């Protein structure tokens, strides 16, 4: 069967990566920011998988790395959301612009 060449995957993952970064920097809402971080992490997972599959099909390091990283990012998200909820408890919204008490 005809394989999609590696570059295509990489393009996708890169787009995701930079989209994530862009989102992280521009979003106004903490949740949105969190989502963009997730994008970044996921894009790297794709990278690992792709590299493993195309360049070093011999073993499965990349794949395992992907699995672990997915798990970890899930944990990260959970904690982040918990904290965001806590923030919501304190200041009744999750707008980034309201998180400026600590500066200089």
């Amino acid at each position, binding site marked *: 069967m005809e394989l999609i060449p590696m570059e295509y995957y990489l393009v996708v993952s890169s787009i995701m990566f930079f989209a994530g970064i862009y989102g992280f*920097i*521009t979003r106004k809402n903490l949740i949105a920011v969190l989502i963009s971080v997730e994008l970044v992490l996921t894009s790297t997972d794709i990278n690992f998988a792709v590299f493993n599959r195309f360049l070093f099909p011999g073993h499965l390091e990349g794949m395992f790395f992907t699995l672990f990283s997915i798990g970890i990012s899930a944990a990260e998200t959970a904690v982040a959301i918990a904290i965001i909820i806590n923030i919501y408890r304190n200041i009744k919204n999750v707008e*980034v612009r309201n*998180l*400026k008490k600590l*500066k200089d």
Partner: protein
Amino acid sequence: MEYTLFILILPLIGFLSLGLLGTRLKGKTAGYVGTALLAATAILAYITAWQYFSTPGVDGIRPTLIPLNWEWMRFTEHLHIDLGILLDPISVMMLVVISTVSLMVHIYSLGYMEGEKGFQRYYAFLGLFTFSMCGLVVATNIFQMYIFWELVGVSSYLLIGFYYTKPEAVAASKKAFIVTRFADMFFLIGILLLSYFTKTFDFGLLCSGEENLFASAAGKTFMGGAVLSWAMALIFIGAAGKSAMFPLHIWLPDAMEGPTPVSALIHAATMVVAGVYLVARLFPVYYFFTPEVLHGIAYVAAFTALYAAIVACVQTDIKRVLAFSTISQIGFMLVALGVSGMGTVEANGLESHEGLGYMASMFHLFTHAMFKALLFMGAGAIIHTVHSNEMSRMGGLRKQMPITHITFLVACLAIAGIPPFSGFFSKDEILTATFMFKPWLGVTMTFIAALTAFYMFRLYYNIFWGKPAQHDHPLHEAPSSMTSPLVFLALVTVVAGFIPFGKFVSSTGAAYIIHLDWKVALTSVIIALVSIFIAWKLYCKGSSKVPDKVAGFFGPLYTAAKHRFYIDEVYQFITHKIIFRCISQPLAWFDRHVIDGILNGIAWITCRGSLAFRWMQTGQLQSYALLLLCGCLLLLCIGLFR
């Protein structure tokens, strides 16, 4: 002759004992202790002189003895400061002069300073001075001389400032010290130069006339002048400072703020002639290697003598008159040295005629010390009674204080050069020497001699004749403790002229037979008599209007002279306006504002620096991420395209 050491030690003991536990002693006791010690010193000095001059030297040439010489501090293998005692005609003669005058002053002060506060301090300082002055004259090397030179300066500073609560006294002492110190700086530089080339401080070597000693300096010039000439000239500047040569003389008149006996001792008889002594000491070097400097000295001295004599004619403060006469007389001595040649020993073991000036100047130094001390003490006695230095407060004192009157008259005659008083002989020799050197200089000096006679008798008549001033307290003769030294010195002044001085002191050390040059002698005596006559005419009655007329006639010159030709003002200007205003204060300002300013500026910039980076800490969550990202990219670039 090791015992000569005690000539130094005894006064030093006096200084230390009186200085440390003086306050425990009663004033009088301190005085007696000091005087006793000084008497011992004087006796030792006489013994030394007798022993030295009685021993005949090898084929008639007086030897140079060095009984003691310790190495005190070693600089390099050649250069080391030794402390020692050098006995040769002039040093022995100086020892005699110093100890005598000092003893007289000690005795005199017992009366003069009676009841003064700080009697002990006074005698302690006198001891210190005598010690350092003796140390100066017996110096075996130029650096030892410099050491005692400084000590002398300090003791003079202390004594001038004896009445330290009097602002004028303080100012005067400061002035005296700083001016002489300024001169000493040149002296030191001169020493450095000389020693750099000759590799020695030792007088013996320097005066030996060794050509090769100065070989390394040969041909070396600095700003046109030969290095050696520079060195000797600088050394002379030092001498000029102490001996109050123009234009470094300004401290001497002010120094009269000190107690009068001190003026007699330091600023008339001994310290001020240190310069003359230094030149005499280095005479061979001057004569053989830098004759041009020697002649320069003569001209400077002649000018100073003239200047001082003119100024002396118009001063009204008797001590200042005497001060300026001192300056002028020292001028005479230095002229004599300057014009002198080096005598040569002739077949008959006597010295040839060229050495006349040298001998004459030493002779005059000797006689002048005596009669000038006498004059000052007399003035002191008068001031003691009248409580004032101003001529106007005096007049007709001859009745109240006969002894003072007579002795003072003797001294005046001596300084005026009237035979048979000592001044006549010595001054006559000087004039002869100058005529031998350059007739016109001789004429000038004769004229100055005439001026001398004039102002001295102006002084004399104003004090003892003229119409008496009113006094609310009875005037009386000074106590015997003060008059006895006067009498003694008067006697010395009378007889000193007949000492065959040349037999003892001469440029080579061989005996020199003094024979009067009748032309010179007669002219000088006549001129002196004439000027005395003028003085008599003008001031004897005290009612004559002529002086004012004369003053009016000389208008500007008179006022100028009265203000000592504004030399002090010039100094004031230089020191305060230039040194302080234009150097010190700007420097201080520079230090406070520029250098500190730079430092504070650096500190300030550092503190402000943090504001330059505040944008990093907006508190905005994402701006942090952005910063992180940018940093990351920057580093990427560095890593990739390093």
